[in-house]
């Protein structure tokens, strides 16, 4: 499944990043690498974007961006 399908308060582990180019690089740079655990903190009041917690810091992604992250639910 992809990160945008993970629900609030759920935790998951990254399997892979399905994007090349600047988008993929950005995600990698920010720590979205295979093996990392992510927790979904909340959605914005209008549902998109979504706030995630990984490795002690918070990153928000748009749904379209979270779609590029393949995860396994924990």
């Amino acid at each position: 499944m992809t990160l945008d399908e993970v629900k609030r308060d759920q935790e998951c582990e990254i399997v892979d990043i399905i994007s090349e180019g600047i988008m993929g690089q950005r995600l990698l740079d920010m720590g979205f690498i295979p093996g990392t655990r992510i927790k979904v903190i909340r959605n914005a009041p209008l549902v998109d974007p979504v706030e995630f917690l990984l490795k002690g810091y918070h990153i928000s992604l748009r749904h379209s961006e979270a779609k590029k992250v393949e995860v396994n639910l924990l």
Partner: protein
Amino acid sequence: MSSKSDKIVVALAGQPNSGKSTIFNMLTGARQHVANYPGVTVEKKTGSFRQDGARIELVDLPGTHSLTSYTLEERIARDFLLNDKPAAVVDVVDASNLERNLYLTFQLAEMDVPLVINLNMMDVAEKRGHKIDIQKLSRQLGAPVVPTVGNKGKGKERIRETILATSKKGRAAPFRIDYGDKLEPILDSLEKRLSEETEISGRYPVRWLAVKLMENDEEAQRVVRKYSKKSGTILRLAEEKREAFTLEHKKSPQKVIAIARHKEAQRIVEASVTRKKEITSTLTDRIDQVACNRYLGPVILVATIYLIYEIAIVQGYRITEYTWPVLAWSRDLIASLLPSEGFIFDPFFRSMPLWVVDGTIAVLNYVPIFLILFALIAILEDTGYMARMAFILDRIFRHFGLHGQSVLPMVIGGLYVGGCAIPGVLACRGIKDEKARIATIMIVPLMNCLAKIPFYVLLVGMFFAAYKGIAMFFIATITIIIALSIAKILNLTVLRKKESAPFVMEMPPYHLPTIQGVLRRCLERTWLFVKKIITIVIAVSVIVYVLIYFPGISKERKTHYISQSDQAQQTFFEKTGKDNSYTGLMTGDNLMEFTRYWRDYKKAKMGAKGKNAKEAIDQEFREKNFEFFKIVKKGKYEVKGEMIKDKHAKKVYNAYKKLSKTTNKLRREIKDETIITSYMGRAGRFIEPLTRWAGFNWRVNIALMSAFAAKESSVATLGGIYQSPPGEKDTLEERIKEKEKGWTALHVLAIMLFMAMYPPCIPTLLMVKLETGSTKWMLFATFYPIVLGIIIAVLVFTGGNLLGLSGMQAMIAFYILALIFLVLMGLIKREAEFI
């Protein structure tokens, strides 16, 4: 290392939110200088400090998470490190977020510049229960590690010493990340090839270059192409290796490299950092539970925006009531140094310089508002709330090609009571996405600028008096509606080619901003603005003056006016009576002197605030010329505690009042005639065939143009142009309606909308140039509103006429139309940006 004048250049790098600016301020204090990196809009801050006799120049590089070549900021940081060859680079690291920060540290280390690790925000790390073994960390990284608490100034001495010591070393400690046994051999072979090319190996660290080539880095490829003789072979080799690697391992080399870096960071952190307690929820988390809450979040957002607006615009404007007298005083000072005014004509060397001065202080009047706005923006940025705003609003703004962060500039540009596009455009600086940033910059001037409000009120009062509230609401909100639609259109057309940046946004922990930091930023920016703007304003003022006041009225007309004025003076003397004791004081040149006294007195009284100030002015003028004083006080004044009622003085007062009225009327007539026959007036007539469709005939054109140039309220100018023959007492509306049969609320609506879309004033345009870095955009920002304004005005006027709509009907119809258009625009999907 520069060997001239003992100046040691050191770079300051770090990820965003690591406290880099605070460290920069801490180290350099007041000795700072802000400029732009050559050719781009990114701010370059340099500062200096002395340590043990050496002078160190610190260059603040843009904060970046990584050092790819995807964004301008990263490229700038890289270029500086590679080309400017600083003696050392200080990496400001957020100690509470060590693992992620090291990702950048490694990349810096690979660039072969002596490294100093500044472990900042130690207090936050401690609060989070992190215990860091500094020695161990330093050993693992092969670089000195200095802990600091930037916003408290802790560690200042030590880091300065370390910087000096490191920069003297001259060589960076060798640092390598093991990228895995699958990649290392490839890197080795690339390194060997590159080393053979002396042009390259002399300039760039080959290891770094090899890694970058495997990352498919564009800039690295460009460098190879430029300096290598066998660039084709090397690049092809890199390409082959990359493809082969990806095929074999199902992962691209850049992914493997990124992962390797993170893993190494993880390893180092696990070795050097012990986590005492497991923090479940920090203060930031708890605040965010409210700030980003589904229902409360938007409420808090609106409240915050409203607060900013209220403090900066509304209260800021109130402050100008106190600062204005200072500006007025300096204007009067200059006026007193110029050749004196005449009765109905003023000499060129008075009226032109005064014109320029007036234009300049009109802009300077805004400075208090700027100061407050810049301070508030700085606070928002520093606290971290800005990111939350973007988080909440992104969804809506995205549909129009804007960014969540676009909201603040738009608010600053003006909501209901007005705003100012100048700081509004500046506030766009924080928007990372270039496409959205430029779009925001382009539409901020469409907001309700403070300057436009009185104009709307006047026109609404004139033609929509019964529906004042609705009309004001209409004009205040229509600008936002149109602005959003325009943003979308820009996004789909002119900005199409620009790259859209990924949103991927960090939500930093909340921070208390330092007063120093905020003040420094706000003063810096205001000063920069004043410096840049004033020269241009002066230059343009001169040009405009020539356009409006030349060629001037003919000699015959001048004579005509002079004879009118002479007549009025005759009447004055008749009215005062032959036996009036004051008559002697008013003859010949004295009349002109009295006139100046009278004008000065009125002006001073107007500018005075409060009873005490008014009394002080009375005192001042009494001492200046007691006889004149008696007259302006209508013959009622105090002598030795007794109130005197001087009938003669009163008579002179009444007679003079009439004279003054006539004189003012003559002045107005002269001005209007001058304008109509001026170059600008001719232009107004020239463009009439086009503007007719918007309902503007040449008189209206001139009225509009002069309203903004001649500084007469447009209503007065319209009044001047529709001069009623002497004796008639028609009101302005009646006069207009007479002259222009069929000039209705529709005309006015068209005018108002045109004014709403008005191109930005010069200071704003300068801001646009600064923030976009291109004259092209500045010109675009100048002309597209004119086109837009005309289209809308024509649509409303001609359309309204064809459909036989009344002013109100057209207003409502247009509003609905605009809303529908907005929704449609919002629904248009942009093409997918990323694969």
